[in-house]
């Protein structure tokens, strides 16, 4: 883990610029949030390929759907709340159902939005997007993975939902061996006593928690599930078979997100006790992002505490 921290929304903006250098058939859509979603970085580099659709997210999804039918590849960007929430039905019927090649870059996901509070803290987007047939759902864990995800999303033919965060987070995938593949989980750390399956910014926190637990004699593995749909079933089942206990960690509701996806796989293939750590069926509130992650038990300290107790 290097000391540098970067928010995955920033990675998104940077990756779009890089992507355009290789593939000039991309077009970036934004809904009056260019500075926040970081599509402003792309706008600066390629102004004529940045379309500001105004504060009209449902309309923007429709525009993206239409654009995609001509062979151009739209990257549609706004906050997760408005991409997955406000425009859900447009995404479902105008993008999902016709399986159009639209890439949704949703930023400001989860409670780490911070001070804006509950109306902007989207803890439901993974659940919503995961129910749309054919939709790929990616939640990268750091800058390196976020940039790789943008490239992979482009190379995939069909709708992709990418979830990015507002908060700057540490880089954890800076290994020469790092390879991103849609639908393939990554073993970040092997362990015998239990396996934490985490996603997004919770991967780094889970690795840190596992290190703390190692000092107490608990050998806990960590798997990074960056693609929640399609989920890496084999890896999840293998972890359950090897360690017998699974803990899921996500900055999302415990209903419908990674925890649910893992439980769906295990209950049908390898029934295993699962502890789901996430937002416990409640709304967030205003406060500093780091403080909120702590309150919701989603930082290394909170994860260590909950998992250690669970494994007692």
């Amino acid at each position: 883990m290097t000391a540098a921290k970067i928010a995955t929304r920033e990675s998104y903006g940077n990756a779009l610029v890089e992507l355009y250098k290789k593939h000039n058939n991309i077009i970036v859509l934004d809904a009056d949030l260019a500075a926040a979603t970081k599509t402003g970085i792309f706008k600066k580099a390629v102004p004529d390929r940045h379309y500001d659709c105004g504060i009209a997210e449902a309309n923007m999804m429709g525009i993206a759907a239409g654009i995609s039918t001509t062979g151009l590849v739209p990257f549609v960007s706004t906050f997760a709340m408005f991409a997955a929430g406000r425009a859900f039905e447009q995404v479902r019927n105008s993008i999902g159902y016709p399986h159009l090649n639209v890439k949704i870059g949703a930023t400001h996901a989860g409670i780490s939005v911070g001070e804006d509070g509950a109306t902007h803290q989207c803890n439901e987007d993974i659940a919503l997007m995961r129910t749309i047939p054919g939709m790929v759902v990616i939640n990268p864990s750091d800058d390196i993975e976020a940039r790789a995800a943008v490239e992979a999303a482009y190379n995939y033919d069909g709708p992709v939902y990418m979830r990015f965060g507002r908060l700057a987070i540490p880089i954890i995938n800076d290994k020469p061996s790092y390879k991103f593949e849609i639908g393939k989980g990554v073993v970040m750390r092997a362990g015998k006593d239990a396996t934490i399956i985490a996603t997004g910014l919770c991967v780094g926190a889970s690795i840190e928690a596992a290190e703390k637990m190692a000092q107490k004699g608990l050998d806990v593995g960590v798997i990074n599930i960056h693609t929640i749909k399609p989920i890496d079933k084999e890896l999840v089942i293998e972890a359950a078979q090897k360690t017998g206990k699974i803990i899921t960690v996500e900055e999302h509701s415990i209903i419908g997100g990674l925890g649910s996806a893992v439980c769906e796989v295990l209950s049908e293939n390898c029934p295993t006790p699962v502890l789901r750590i996430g937002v416990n069926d409640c709304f967030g509130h205003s406060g500093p992002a780091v403080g909120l992650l702590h309150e919701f038990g989603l930082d290394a300290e909170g994860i260590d505490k909950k998992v250690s107790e669970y494994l007692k």
Partner: protein
Amino acid sequence: MDIIELKKIAKRIRLSTMQMLEKAGTGHPGGALSMVEILVTLYFEKMNIKPHEPNWKYRDRLILSKGHGNPSYYAVLSEKGYFAKEKLSTLRQYGSILQGHPDMNTTPGVDMSTGSLGQGLSIGCGMAIAAHMQHEKFRVYVIVGDGELDEGQNWEALMSAVKYKLDNLTLIVDYNKLQINGSNEDVMGIAPLDKKFAAFNWNVIRINGHDFRDIRNALEMACSTSGRPTVIIADTIKGKGISFMENNPIWHGKIPDRVQFEKIFRELEGDI
């Protein structure tokens, strides 16, 4: 109320707004400052309310659909006595009754939770329909941003309000000509607003949104119009009252630095 008195209150509200934002360290100054006179006229002159009884059944309602502008709204509510002034310094902080966007369940005086743009007018229609149905006299006010009008839901609501003859509903557009990415007309043209509303069969009034007499008269005309809803298009200045913030889109959601705050407080306190 005396115009001089209203002006004094507006100055205090601007000062409180900037003090709150300084303490919070995050938030949206521009749109909070552009609607100060509107809020002050509504709460100190027009609205039939009982601050000591915030949930009084027959009160007039206000929905701040552009919820991000809430610092000045909170300052007005506390000035009216809905909650203690000391609370203002907790804006957006951990455990505060003053959330980053209005929350009707934590802040006394807030009639509706908002923050996701474009939804307030529909809710206002609902309240106004309920008032008509129950033969209650209360009025419903909705404040929207001009950028917020990009949202299609507003235009759906505009039709509903006419269909149900909601003459107890008044929409106020804080027409400061700016949103986040720049001017309305660059982001998504909304002009000509008056013609659009008129085409939707609303009673349209256009005013200077910083002129108390204008606001007062417009609200009066809205009250005396029967059979259809009224929209007040209030020409305003984003960042109004702070010289370097006025008409500059960068101050939508940006907090000034320490030196800038000193200048701000010199300007605002000098006024008082």
